[in-house]
């Protein structure tokens, strides 16, 4: 059964049609990497999955819930969809520990003690336990992004969405973030990753999706997409980035 089911998704900004007809099914524990040029619509697709952008038409089911017709339930649905942003978006006025424990406490899912205990466990998982009481601005980009991953995991999501999680990082910090994501994939998290890291996609993805001009042009296991791409547009794109 599909964890995420996207049918005939279209999205326009004014006259500009960014997603033209997207159909995609993501299975439980599957790791999907979405690749494509800037402006191809891949980030928009990701943002539609947790309704940061409203779909113009089509349906997006996550765990059987239709995100596009969520109405009053969207906050509930979003709790199960973790999101990691290119710019980290940690809350600068909260310590690392508070960043991670804040939402579960505010939403009354956990007591403060439980949430902080979970937060510490997650910090251990991203190898930043000693940074629990510092503020985000005192961390490097790579550390901030690992905290952001921990913050998303604190909601115990069913799916994790990554929107170019390493694009804003200095090159030497990309590895530490990718390693956390690899571990997450190994642990069986369902993941949809928009990325320019072809190495990561090749190594970790179960399926790679190439998006161009609002369509899924080609999809398949990484060995096929990278080793033997069939569509000319995929070939052109890969020639440019590899």
């Amino acid at each position, binding site marked *: 059964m599909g964890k995420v089911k996207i049918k005939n998704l279209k999205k326009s900004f004014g006259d500009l049609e960014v997603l033209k007809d997207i159909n995609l099914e993501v299975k439980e524990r599957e790791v999907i990497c979405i690749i494509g040029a800037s402006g191809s619509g891949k980030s928009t697709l990701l943002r539609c999955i947790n309704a940061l952008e409203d779909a113009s038409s089509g349906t997006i089911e996550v765990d059987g819930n239709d995100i596009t017709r969520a109405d009053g339930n969207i906050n509930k649905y979003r*709790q199960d969809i973790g999101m990691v942003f290119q710019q980290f*978006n940690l809350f600068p*006025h909260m310590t690392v520990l508070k960043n991670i424990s804040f*939402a579960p406490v505010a939403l009354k899912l956990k007591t403060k003690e439980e949430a902080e205990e979970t937060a510490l466990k997650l910090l251990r998982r991203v190898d930043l336990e000693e940074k629990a009481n510092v503020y985000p601005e005192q961390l490097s980009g790579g550390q901030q992004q690992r905290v952001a991953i921990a913050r998303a995991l604190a909601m115990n999501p069913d799916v994790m969405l990554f929107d170019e999680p390493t694009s804003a990082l200095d090159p030497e910090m990309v590895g530490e973030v990718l390693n956390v994501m690899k571990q997450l994939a190994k642990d069986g998290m369902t993941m949809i990753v928009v990325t320019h890291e072809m190495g990561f996609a090749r190594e970790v993805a179960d399926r790679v999706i190439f998006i161009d001009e609002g369509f899924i042009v080609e999809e398949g296991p990484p060995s096929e997409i990278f080793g033997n791409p069939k569509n000319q547009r995929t070939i052109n794109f890969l020639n440019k980035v590899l």
Partner: protein
Amino acid sequence: MNILALIVQYWPRLIAGLGLTVQITIISLILAGILGMVFGLLSVSKRKSLRAIALVYVDIVRGTPLLVQAFFIYFGIPAALGIQSDPVVSGVITLSLNAGGYLAEIVRGGIESISRGQMEAARSLGLPYGMAMRSVILPQAIRTMTPALINQCIITLKDTSLLSVIGVTELTQTGRLIIANNYQSFEVWAIVAMMYFIIIMILSKISKRIERKMSYGKSKN
């Protein structure tokens, strides 16, 4: 000297005037704070109609002189309704509405200065809009807003002097009344100006201290 003697002689009246000035300022700023927060939040709403309401309010406040607003509220509205109006109450209403408009703009600017990613991150965790605004956006926005907020407090304090024209016996009106008795215009206005100056200096000193205290845990670690 002459001025000292005057200060001693009129001290109770001057202090009473200053007291009323400060009271009107504080009450007006509290009410203006509420108005500013409400209309500031309306002005960043997703709904066009709510934004329009805030826009009309702010435009009216900014597009008319404070003195005209005071006359309208003290003379105009009571005349139309056939009621008696109290100068202090009218004065407080005027200043509240006026400062509220400016504060709404400050609140809007403060909220808009926070990157969109903050709201998105909060919402992506499942927080409802109001909770995200209250716990994530506003605490950050208030820090950026602080200098402008303090500036508005000082402006409102000074604006109370305009209420003398509708007969509120705040500090400026007290000065006018004293001069009506003794004709010592130079000395009395010098005293009144000094009193405003001292209060405002105290306020700005306090505000500088608050501003310094408000930078994020930078002193820690």
